[in-house]
């Protein structure tokens, strides 16, 4: 149970590679933070620096108000769950759980009590005498989590713990990790490249790209108000449609199509236009709409994913099952559901004032405190 302050942390490798560049994150007690980003974005490196497995090149990491830059991993009051579980293959499940406690000279009776408690919580009691070899992937993952729990650490660190599991098990384990973390109220940092996992687990998401933070926010903030084109395309499936357009007065021009646009924005000239696939609606009778050429359709059961072109730019729309799909559809979008990003920097351009009736902007208070 502790706060974590990551202050201007950088990682520069011997070869001069700048993997993590001046990251600031303030994590509150009991918060579940997910670091998400494509491979090579520095998320694992950042986690390993918090764990103490990687030296911190610049900046400071403090856990519970104590700067831990030079503290050994074992003394940082953390526990880590690895992607490949990293269970000791020659030890029984019980010994795997007890090893860390034994090294800390915990009394035997307490070790047994704690292991029993963790085993009950994770439902691995029947396997305590087995070797990891005799367990399935999901069971091994539980044991790895048990090893973290028995230590009663101040912080849980998860390094893509679900990547080695099959899709169905991943969903179950995801839920269990969330439940467990809530129950223990232990601060957690979780690294993943899977945006769905990030969305479902996080209290707050940290989207990383190229060693810098693109955005920090709650899953809904990040989804509905992506701070950059990178975040917009990374979070959400299907990815947000990004089109090249121009704002000319009250008109938004995309290729040879233009639409009236009611919300005043500070932007003018060339912009990147972001529209979520589910925000595109079929135009009703008598509404002009945007001309959408259909290329192919993906059936998802609950709805259809229709891929096509809007004046020669790729676009994906979610269309309800009952709608007839013709070669050319006419789509509309509510103006307040359209996002604008600067063409050159990719940063979000906020509307000057919220459109009446639009979704209230997400509170920025948390984000502001990290500046």
């Amino acid at each position, binding site marked *: 149970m502790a706060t974590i302050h990551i202050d201007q942390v950088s990682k520069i490798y011997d070869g001069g590679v700048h993997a993590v560049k001046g990251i600031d994150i303030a994590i509150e007690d009991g918060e579940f933070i997910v670091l998400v980003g494509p491979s090579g974005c520095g998320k694992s490196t950042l986690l390993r620096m918090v*764990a103490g*497995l990687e030296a911190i090149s610049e900046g400071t990491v403090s856990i519970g108000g104590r700067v831990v830059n030079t503290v050994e*991993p*074992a003394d940082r009051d953390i526990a880590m769950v690895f992607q490949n579980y990293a269970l000791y*293959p*020659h030890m029984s499940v019980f010994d795997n759980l007890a090893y860390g406690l034994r090294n*800390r000279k915990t009394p035997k009776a307490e070790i047994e009590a704690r292991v029993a408690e963790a085993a009950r919580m994770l439902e691995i009691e029947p396997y305590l005498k087995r070797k990891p070899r005799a367990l399935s992937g999901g069971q091994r993952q539980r044991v790895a989590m048990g*090893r973290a729990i028995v230590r009663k650490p101040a912080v849980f660190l998860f390094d893509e713990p679900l990547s080695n599991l099959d899709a169905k098990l991943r969903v179950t384990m995801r839920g269990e990790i969330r439940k467990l973390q809530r129950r223990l109220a232990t601060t957690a940092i979780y690294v993943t490249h899977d945006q769905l996992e990030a969305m479902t687990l996080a209290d707050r998401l940290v989207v990383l790209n190229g060693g810098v933070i693109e955005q920090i926010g709650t899953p809904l903030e990040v989804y509905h108000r992506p701070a950059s084109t990178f975040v917009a395309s990374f979070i959400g499936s299907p990815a947000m449609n990004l089109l090249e357009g121009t704002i000319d007065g009250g008109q938004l021009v995309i290729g040879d199509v233009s639409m009236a646009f009611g919300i005043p924005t500070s932007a003018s000239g060339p912009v990147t236009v972001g529209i979520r696939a589910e925000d595109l609606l079929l135009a009703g009778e008598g509404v002009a709409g945007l001309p959408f050429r259909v290329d192919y359709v993906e059936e998802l059961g609950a709805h259809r994913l229709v891929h096509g072109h809007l004046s020669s730019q790729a676009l994906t729309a979610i269309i309800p099952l009952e709608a007839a799909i013709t070669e050319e559809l006419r789509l509309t979008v509510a103006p307040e559901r359209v996002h604008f990003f600067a063409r050159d920097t990719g940063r979000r351009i906020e509307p000057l004032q919220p459109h009446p009736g639009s979704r209230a902007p997400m509170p920025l208070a948390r984000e502001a405190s990290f500046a």
Partner: protein
Amino acid sequence: MYRTKFFDHLILIAGVILMLGPLVVAFTTSTHTAAEIHTDGLMLSIGDHFTETYDKVLFRGGGFTGEVTGLTMALNSLILGLGFAIGKIVLSMMAAYAIVYFRFRFATLAFWLIFTTLLLPLEVRIMPSYKVMSDLGLLNTHTGLILPLLASATGTFFFRQFFKSVPDELLEAARIDGAGPVKFFIDVLVPLSRTMIAAVFIIMFVYGWNQYLWPMLMTTDESFYTLMRGIKQILQVWVGSQIPDYNEAFAMAVLAMLPPVVIVVIFQSWFIKGLTESDK
């Protein structure tokens, strides 16, 4: 189907005969008297002097002093083989641990220096080694027999490769669990290397057991004689009309073969695992 099986077995049986034949002949011949062997050559039938010959070889004193029995020699061989195998494993595991897990200057260079000595057999450095041992006053001691042969490039290489295949996360998990370098080595690496240790143990034990040249140089005192030297000793009595005790030589050869066989039989399943298993 049947024909294939038949020929498969034929080949296997031929192999068995080829490999076992000499051993069987050595055994059967050893049960005859020296005179019989001298006149009739190798024997396939079992003679009636089994107990007598083996008793003599094992328990009757021989050599110049008349105090060295086969049992003493077997004990010497055992000390050499065990000391050799255990010493080599301990040393090469520690060397490999240092090379793989600790970043120090010239680690790779050190490793390759050790590795190149693989190309130099004992015979090449036998004179300098002898000189060093004699200066240290270790001639005619078990220490002197074992010590100079302990540094093992092969063992170090085997363990280095094995340690490299152990996932890094295991080390990291151990670090988070509060295990220092020594604890990690003893609690995790050594138990993980079990099969590897067994494999290296067999190879090194047999190698040490069969050493001939080095013990011959190092020991002049008969009480340090090994079985290998004993066999030669028996045959070295071709004086005048005296015929060598062929039967005893054969008996001793059979006895000398037994311990390595026992070791291989005991450890064979681990041995195969150690050399082939990559699943950790």
